[in-house]
């Protein structure tokens, strides 16, 4: 390999990330995990899911950007991968709209036995 050292195009393209950056990202991810777990003990009502998904998305961006090296990757790779999430969003949002519009609940309720205590018996 030493023969090619810096001499040829297409060689020595590696881009090692500094260890401090990797470790910093790991610490940030751990801190964000602690934050997610901690927020679960507060009742944030319907904002709950928004907060949780927001934190998860920050973590995902850190992993994708730094660990997966996407921040320095080829634009086409970024486009492809980030594009897949656009399609995921499209898929989930349209399906949710559809399920809201056409049915309330299609979990089949067969004549099974209630596993928990039935509060109605008390009253």
């Amino acid at each position, binding site marked *: *390999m030493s023969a090619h050292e810096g001499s040829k195009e297409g060689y020595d393209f590696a881009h090692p990330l500094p260890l401090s950056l*990797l470790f910093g990202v790991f610490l940030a991810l751990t801190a964000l995990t602690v934050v*997610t777990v901690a927020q679960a003990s507060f009742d944030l009502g319907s904002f709950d899911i928004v907060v949780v998904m927001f934190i998860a998305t920050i973590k995902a961006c850190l992993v994708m950007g730094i*660990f997966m090296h996407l921040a320095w990757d080829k634009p086409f790779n970024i486009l492809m991968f980030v594009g897949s999430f656009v399609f995921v969003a499209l898929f989930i949002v349209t*399906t949710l709209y559809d399920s809201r519009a056409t049915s309330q609940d299609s979990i089949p309720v067969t004549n099974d036995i209630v596993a928990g205590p039935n509060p109605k*018996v008390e009253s």
Partner: protein
Amino acid sequence: MATSEAGHSADQHAGDAHGHDHDHPDYLAHHFDTPEQQFDSGKLGMWLFLVTEVLFFSGMFCAYAIFRAWRPEVFEGCSQFLNTKLGAINTGVLLFSSFTMAWAVRASQLEEHKKTAALIATTLCCAMVFLGVKAVEYSHKWAMGLLPAGLFSYDENNPHPPGPNWLLYICMPFIVITIGVFLWMVFSWATKAKFQFQCAKPLFFVCLSFFGGVYLGTVLEPKVEDHAVHASADGHADAAEHAEGDPHAEGDSHAEGEAEAAGADEGEHTEEAHEAAPAEEETEEPVIELGSVVPKSGTMVDTSRDLEIQRKLASVEANSAVRDELNALERQDMNASGAITYHQTDDTSNTIAGSEEDVMRRSRAGVFFSIYYCMTGVHAIHILAGIGVLVWLLVRSLRKDFNRNYYGPVDYVGLYWHLVDLIWIYLFPLMYLIR
């Protein structure tokens, strides 16, 4: 060479083209011009694969979103059965393994062979710890009957029915593999197969770390007695809370009722206590004056607490006979007041009306656990696949295959591993942290 010249600066490669073959390093496949081209093609392929993975998982996330939108209370109720502590630990373990993986990529780029192998082995150990903790979680739920719809058989009043030791069953293949790797290690050491010994040594520790994970999970998972209390006090009652009533008060009165029932019987068989109920009724009936307010049909008059106790007993799922008897009594009572009681019963727990409020109906709770097992199970399969490729990577890194111009495999496996981590980052709060 025409295609390559279209892509690169022609003048640089004109000279190379002839001396191409003897100048081709052995890590460079013959159909690539440069290591960078090779790396970029591989990476493009890997990203494409990851895109299919994301779309593949999105189907399950979509199912999750729809069912949660339909029945948020089912998810709130059932999520209480998941151990947040174990989930958080697994998140930390996966994040750490992601970090060591990213570090391994860096080490391979810098040609630090020993470090690369050590970091890949660390990543493998983390993966095994993850699976170990997962094994404890799964076995615990299987023992409690918290299974997918159709198999779901959780009973709050008997949360720990006797059953097989699932944890042992899950551990079995890992025990076999560990013993196998140990024998391989000893054999390669005895026969002085240096490289094999070099591979077997870290792999043995990787296998052992599964049991480390199992130990960690067992320590953190509440013991059987504790868990029963936890499930009924926190999880289950919370689940039913939205319906009505203070969960703890309800639980107390329930226990009280049972205690009284036991006290009232005092050595008598429960059946006799039930026999007493209709007798009581008959004797009470004449007390009501004809001129006074006649109780509505179906409201049984009862001055002792026997009927109440019987109702409480009937609310327990296992006591189906008591419930039937109570229904029969009620019908009898209504018949006595001249009502027609065809298919009429006071018990609403078996009807749609009763099902509306109840989170823990098997068909509903089962759907949550179907989604839970599907998502975490497929994720665990990805971990297993990741372990497979990481072992391959470990052997290759011990062989010093990678250098600054050829670290593609480490990088691609790293990308895959980060994606598995990425999915868990979303799975963890969605499954474990529902309030």
